[in-house]
């Protein structure tokens, strides 16, 4: 029997690794305001949850994080550190609630420690990675999770679209897991919500994967207010 080398295996496995809750970047501590929705009795059933997560996808994950990730991926591919830092700065500026920024930059720093700067090769791109990792480690740049994710994904051979899809997917499963620990949702119900959200994930990635960095903006006032109220919440199991 002969084995044919599989050029896509590395990228595919990276996508699995990055979207797996096993990745130790503290994703399980973030609810991005979901805990506050539950605290205030705004989510009662699977339909509420599906609608809320669809709104997160369309108004935050798509227009903010996907745009940041896609442009970080492009900047990494072009070896353009300036552009990469500009994307990071803009994402910081459009992420309103303090706890959202903290959850994202803490996870970003951990992903950076784990996976950035260890793929140096002859093309000089390792320099960009190292410079970026330095900037994150020294707080010269915020180091948001989608931005670091874009760099990691690009360096390990994921296409821009695959990177955006796997990131949006892991955002959804992260929040579904949070919902399950906060409320009382059955595992089959949660899977049904996930299934219903898959087309939305694909839709927002298609819509935003080619956006310019200047298009990065969020419009999710209620989610942002929930995120801010969470800072003083009567119950806090989550960091955001």
């Amino acid at each position: 029997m002969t084995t044919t080398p599989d050029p896509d295996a590395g990228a595919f496995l990276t996508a699995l690794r990055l979207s797996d809750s096993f990745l130790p970047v503290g994703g399980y501590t973030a609810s991005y305001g979901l805990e506050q929705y539950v605290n205030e009795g705004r989510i009662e059933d699977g339909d509420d949850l599906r609608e809320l997560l669809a709104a997160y996808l369309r108004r935050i994950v798509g227009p903010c994080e996907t745009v940041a990730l896609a442009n970080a991926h492009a900047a990494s591919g072009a070896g353009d550190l300036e552009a990469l830092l500009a994307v990071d700065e803009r994402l910081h500026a459009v992420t309103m609630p303090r706890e959202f920024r903290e959850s994202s930059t803490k996870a970003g720093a951990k992903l950076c420690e784990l996976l950035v700067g260890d793929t140096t090769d002859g093309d000089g791109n390792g320099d960009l990675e190292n410079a970026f990792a330095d900037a994150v480690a020294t707080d010269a740049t915020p180091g948001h999770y989608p931005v670091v994710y874009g760099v990691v994904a690009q360096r390990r051979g994921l296409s821009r679209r695959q990177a955006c899809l796997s990131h949006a997917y892991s955002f959804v499963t992260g929040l579904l897991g949070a919902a399950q620990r906060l409320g009382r949702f059955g595992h089959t119900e949660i899977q049904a919500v996930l299934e219903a959200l898959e087309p939305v994930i694909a839709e927002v990635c298609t819509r935003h994967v080619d956006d310019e960095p200047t298009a990065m903006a969020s419009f999710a006032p209620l989610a942002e207010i929930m995120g801010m109220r969470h800072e003083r919440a009567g119950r806090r199991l989550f960091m955001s």
Partner: protein
Amino acid sequence: MGYRDVAKVGLGGPVGSGKTALVERLVPELVARDYEVGVIANDIMTQEDADVFRESFADLLAPDLVAGVETGACPHTGIREDPSMNLAKIDEFTERHPDLDVVLVESGGDNLAATFNPELADYFLFVISVAEGEDIPRKRGPGVTQADLLVVNKTDLAPHVDADLEVIEDDAAAVRGDDPFVFTNCKDGAGVDAVLEHVEREVLFA
């Protein structure tokens, strides 16, 4: 300077076994011995809880050396599979206090299977109490068997819950092999010296 440069002591164990009570006993003793100490409590439920903690150490520790870390209802994950948020907090401590000697990390109350990731804790105390049942040690939970030091707390309550300290001692010795365990009463402080001695010898002098 980062989390790798400071000694880290983990305290795990079931809900209500006396982890916080032990931290409150250890901190003043460590400060009296001229160590600069930081404290992290996992699974603080409200900001008020964090404030209570900060107040009880007000005369001993800088307020920014006392912190809560929320673990998203996953206390075991926070100290075992993915300690990243605890490590990030320790990094914040060391950034502001480069002379920090030791950080005590109290896990959220958990079951008998909780163990600390060795990158988060150089030394790991597992705190159980006699009031949870005298058979706890012989269940051989990973926390009980793998901890660097097993602490059996609330010895004062033994007579009230029909727990036989001799049985606990024999069982603990059997399941721990050569590894140490101590009895404590955090109400009057009995046994706390022995805990300190272990921590100092194994972590701070190491």
